[in-house]
Structure formats: C-alpha cells, structure tokens
C-alpha cells in the first residue's frame, strides 16, 4: 500500500517537473513527430510515380523487336533514356563516368534469337554503388521486357509464362510502405523511454536532487516504480499522438487499441529498466543520451522495424531473437495489421515483462552500490 502511494507521489513529481521544463516537454513529444516526418519523406521518395533515372541504351540489333523494346524504355516513368549510343563500350563508359546510372545493351541477333528460339538476352550494367537505383532500373527494364513478351509476344514468337504466382497478403491490405509504421511506434516508445531515463535519473543526479530523494523515507523500489509509472503515462501520450498521425496517414488499425497501449507501455518499461542499469554506471546525461541514441540506430535493423528478423542472416536472427524489443515489434504488427488478440501476443508481452523483471533487480543492486 505504502509502495503504491510513494510510487504515485514520485510519478506525479516527475510529471510536474517535466511540465515546468518547456524545452524537455517539447522535446519529449517532438521526437515522434520528427521521426514520422522523416519517414514520410523517405516513403514519399520510394513511392514517387516517376524517377527519371538516367540510363543510356545501345541498340546493337536494330531489329523490329529491339526497336519496340527501346520505345518501351523511352516511355518508362522510372528510367529516362538520356542517350542512344552506338557501341557497348560507350554505354559502359557513361556508367563508369557517373553520367548515367545504368546502361542497357541490346546485343546483335536479339530479334533473330527471339523469333527462332523464343529466348534472347539483353545486357544491363548499373552503378551498383547506389542503394536503390540499380534495383529500380532492373525492375523497369524487366517490366519492359515482360511487356514486350505479353503485348507483342505472338509477333516475335514468345510464349506466355507457364506458371503465374498470385500473392495474397492475409490482412488484405495493399502492399504499401506503411508496413514499417508499427516498428516506428515501437522505436518512439524506446527513444521516449531513453529520454525519460535521462530526465529521471542522470539529470536528477547532476542537479544533486537524487541523493536527497534517496535519503527521504521512500524505498528505492518506490522511486524506480514511480519513475516507471511516469514513463508509462508519457508513453501513453506519445502512443496516442502516433496513432493519430497513423490514422491521418490512412492506416487502418484492425486490433484492440488497448493492446497497442499495453505493448508500447511494456516496451517502454523494458527500455527504462535497461536504462536504469546503464545509468547506474554512466553518470553524465549527455553521455548517456549519446550512447542510447547510438544503440538505437542498429536496433532499426535488428528488431525488425524495416524488415522481418526472419530475413536476417543466422547471426542477426539470433541477436534479434535475444532482444525483447523484437517481440514488442511483432506484437504491435500483429495487433495493428492482423487484428489479432491477446492470445496471439501473450508470449511476446511475457518476454518483455520477463526482460524488465530481470533488468530491474540488476538496476537496483547497481544503484545501491554506486549511490
């Protein structure tokens, strides 16, 4: 009873302190908005209707089939044929010099081969030092080649594809860039909790109020649970803000909203527990923040924010499975996209809870030692 009363008192003290510090107050809610802003820019760039990626073409065949293919490429919204060159060397030189990001070479005998065997090849050279352009160029040229097969196929003796793969996502959603939004919600809960730990412990230490708090007739467990309670409340506000942004962006949330709040709260509590362990050793608030931010960036990759941990290499998958945040991300995706209930995510929530319960005694012991 006393523990609960003291914890509540500490939680309200935290919130009062935050409300009196306008800079921290703005920052604690600016992180999510700015992160999402950056995501919108990136997602917008990925889903742009046209890119005009500079590509040069060398049509060494000049047959009717190659001419049709070149025509298709010149009208592609993805690539922009900047020059038609006469030799393969010229085409490759443009890519090596950085004037074009890709070169398409249609070899001599392309049309003839299509007519006689139904098969032919084209050569594609891309600037593979780039991140996204090579894939986009390849996809565009691929599409044009498939288009050549499907629309003018009979004219050039091309058969239809024998087996077609029909993809059906189980949620029924169109495959859009918003697949990473639940991961972002999780990252915001993590970043927010890291920021809370800096405000709650290290800045209190720097101001000299932490020893006073510990000397007061309040149990250290109450101090920590009070700070956790404050973080849970702040995480709920951040989650609400994010869900509003998600809905404004057109994301349909299928599952129970309460489960989303429970998951983000558990992610924040685990992060805070880890932060408490770290803050027992690292005393400076800015040092701790730098370290936490540095740790956050690889988490985007390892906890499955951008792509499922199942697609990682064996080592990465093992690390990913050892991180409780991965389970938090999974739970959020299952609730938000698939509309699954507590029975489907109970295991994930349990792992987050166990992670926190393991970290908290370590933090308490370390804090007592380094007090």
């Amino acid at each position, binding site marked *: 009873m006393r523990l609960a009363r003291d914890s509540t008192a500490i939680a309200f003290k935290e919130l009062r302190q935050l409300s009196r510090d306008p800079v921290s107050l703005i920052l604690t809610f600016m992180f999510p908005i700015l992160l999402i802003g950056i995501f919108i820019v990136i997602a917008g760039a990925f889903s742009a209707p046209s890119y005009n990626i500079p590509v040069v073409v060398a049509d060494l065949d000049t047959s009717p089939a190659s001419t049709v293919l070149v025509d298709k490429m010149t009208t592609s919204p993805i690539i922009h044929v900047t020059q038609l060159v006469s030799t393969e060397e010229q085409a490759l030189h443009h890519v090596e010099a950085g004037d074009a990001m890709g070169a398409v070479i249609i070899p001599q005998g392309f049309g003839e081969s299509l007519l006689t065997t139904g098969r032919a090849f084209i050569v594609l*050279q891309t600037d593979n030092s780039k991140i996204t352009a090579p894939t986009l160029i390849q996809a565009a*040229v691929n599409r044009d080649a498939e288009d050549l097969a499907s629309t003018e196929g009979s004219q050039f003796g091309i058969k239809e594809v024998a087996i077609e793969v029909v993809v059906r996502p*189980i949620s029924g959603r169109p495959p859009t860039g918003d697949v990473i939004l639940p991961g972002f919600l999780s990252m915001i809960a993590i970043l927010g909790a890291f920021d809370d730990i800096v405000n709650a412990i290290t800045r209190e230490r720097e101001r000299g109020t932490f020893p006073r708090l510990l000397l007061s007739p309040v149990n250290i467990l109450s101090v920590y649970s009070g700070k956790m309670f404050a973080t849970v409340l702040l995480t709920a506000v951040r989650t609400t803000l994010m869900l509003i942004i998600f809905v404004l962006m057109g994301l349909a949330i299928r599952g129970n909203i309460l489960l989303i709040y429970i998951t983000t709260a558990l992610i924040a509590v685990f992060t805070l527990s880890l932060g408490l362990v770290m803050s027992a050793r690292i005393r400076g608030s*800015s040092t701790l923040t730098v370290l936490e931010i*540095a740790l956050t960036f690889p988490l985007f990759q390892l906890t499955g924010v951008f792509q499922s941990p199942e697609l990682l290499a064996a080592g990465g998958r093992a690390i990913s499975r050892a991180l409780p945040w991965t389970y938090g991300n999974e739970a959020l995706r299952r609730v938000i996209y698939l509309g699954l209930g507590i029975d489907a995510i109970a295991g994930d929530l349990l792992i987050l809870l166990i992670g926190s319960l393991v970290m908290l005694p370590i933090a308490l012991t370390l804090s007592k030692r380094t007090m």
Partner: protein
Amino acid sequence: MLKLLRDLVAVAGNEFRQFRRNKTAILISLVVLPLFFTVSLGAAGGGPTTTFSPTANIPITFIDNDLSAESSQLLQALRSSGDFDRIILGYREDSALAVLGTGKIYAAIVIPEGFHTRLANNQTSEIILYTDDGEPGIGDQLSVTLRSVVQDFNPNVEVQAERRGLTQVEIVQKGALFSSFNIGLVIVLGVVQIFATFYEIAGGMSREREDGTLARLLVSPTGIAPIMLGKTLFVSVLAIIRTFIVLGLAVYVFGARPSTDLVTLLAVSLIIALVTMGFGFVVSSFRVGARAVVIVEFFLVLFLFAFSGLVIDKELLRGVSKTISNILPWAYGFELLRRTVLIGRPLLSLTTELSIIFGSTLLFYVFSYAIFAYSRERLAF
C-alpha cells in the same frame, strides 16, 4: 607560426590527457560506436563472402490441392532450389490461413486443383501464395524468390534445370556487384565518424563551458585558432583510430575487401570527420548546452539517413528533399566513400565532391572562428 604550432600541440596534448582519464569516453568513442555498428551490420546480412538465401529458413507450408505428378515435381523443385529449406507439409488451406500471423508459419503456397490440366493444355497455371504481411518484407521477398523458381519450372522434365533468370528475355547483369556488407560498410564508416566526431567537438566545447574551463582557456594567452586546431588534431587522431577499428573488424572478422588502398580510406574518413568537426564548432559557437548538442546530433544523423543517400539515392529525391540533399556536405562525403571503397576510383579524380566538401569545411571553420572571435566573452560563460 611556431607559437601557433606550440599552442596547438599543447591544446591537443591537454585533450588527450583528459580523454585518457575518462574511461566512459574511451569506451564509447573507441569501442562501443565502431564495434556496435560494424558487428550489427555483419550479423544482419552476413559478411561479404557469405551467401545466404533470406527465404531459406522461413517456415512455409505447401498445400497441394491438385495431387498430380506436376505439383509433386514443383514441390521437389522448390525443395532443391536452396531457397525453401523449411517447407512444412500437412496443413489444409483453411488451417494454414488460421495459423498464418501467429509466427508458426509465414506463408502458404497453394497449388489449386486443375494445376496440371492447365499446364497440359498449354495454359497458364496459377499458384497462390498467402503471406503474413504483418512481417515487413517477407511477402515481397517470398514472391520474388518463388517467381524466379517457377519461371524455370518445366513439368516435363524430371530433374529441374539450373535456374537461369527470365524465361523469354533474360537480363544479363554486368559490372561489379557489391555485397550488402560492403555497401553497409560505407555507411558505417561514415556514420561512426559523424556520430563520434560531432559529439567530441560540440559536446566537448559545451562541457568545457559548463565546467568553467572554457573561460580559463579563452583568457589564457592561447589564441582561438590554436584551441580549434588543437581540438581538431585530437579528434582527428581518434577518427583515424576508429577507422582502423571499423576496417579491422570488417576485413579480419567479416572478410571485407575494399576496392581502394588504406591511405585513401583514411583520407576519406578524415575528410568526413573534418567537415563534421567544422559543423561541431559552428554548433558550439551558438553557445548550446550539452543536452542540446545531443539533440542536434540525433537530428543530424536522422537527416543524413533521409537525405544523404543512405536509405534512398539522393538522385531519386525530389523537391525540398533534393535541395536539402544537395546542400548537405556529408552527402558528398558518402559519395566519396562509395566511389573509392566500392568502385575503386582514385580519390583525386572525384574533384566535384572534394571541392564541395573542402569548401564546406573551410566555411564551417571560418564562420565558427569569426563567431568565437567576435563574441569571445559571451561564449565563455
């Protein structure tokens, strides 16, 4: 000139002494940052020499509603492809759909009834791939891999031929192919330097101000230039050590083979570190606190991820994003890294990138020097 050099070395020596006494700073700057970024890169995608199929270990169920020789052959083709090593049999279509999304299986390949009849009649047969789209990227990756396997599937052949690519018009890829580790290494080399050097300069200056040592330094007979250059010298040495650590891990642990020599690599890393140090001085010339420095750092790295070609090529950005990308000197730094580390271009042939980045560095240093000189007293306290 001699005095400038002497003062510069004295300031740098003082920085090294302070650094040596701060175990946390050593740990973060030289161990945590380079180690964590490089190891997570290697762990996530494997080394540059390791090849793995991202779909090979994903549990997938194969539901054969056709029960024909052709559908069995297709299952055999999938199993022997090396891309589908965890095919689970025994599910019905409805039970598979009920399990999808729970993490037991991530996709279901369904061969519909009439599959073999359509193939026999020279018609296009369908395969249905149900995917758990709650897992980002899995559906796209599985459909691409499945399409590439079935495109070369020939139901009339007992042993499936080696995969060749597209059936009608094959695209032969020419030119150097870089592993995702090598592409990631370029990012890690740049990001680690930016992350660490910015904090070492801007954070160091703000800490000196908060501790009151900056005021003492400014009233000493040491000029502003030796203070800035001394700190630059100190952080440059740390930057070189960090480059060695990242490269050492990449080359000796993960087997990376950069296409350029060590001198070029060190030079490019140092160029990126210098422009970041210049920016660090600019930020600290605005008298910002340690907490604000960290926040600026966070947004700097976020901006770099969005606009420097780390997630999407800067050439593909449009409008305001493109303008931001064009004015960020780090974007040219990453271009230098890509062109040298991946393609092996000589550093001195990249004149445009070098001019922009050197110009920006000079601008940052001159601007911050002017502010420091103009408002020396205000900045000290």
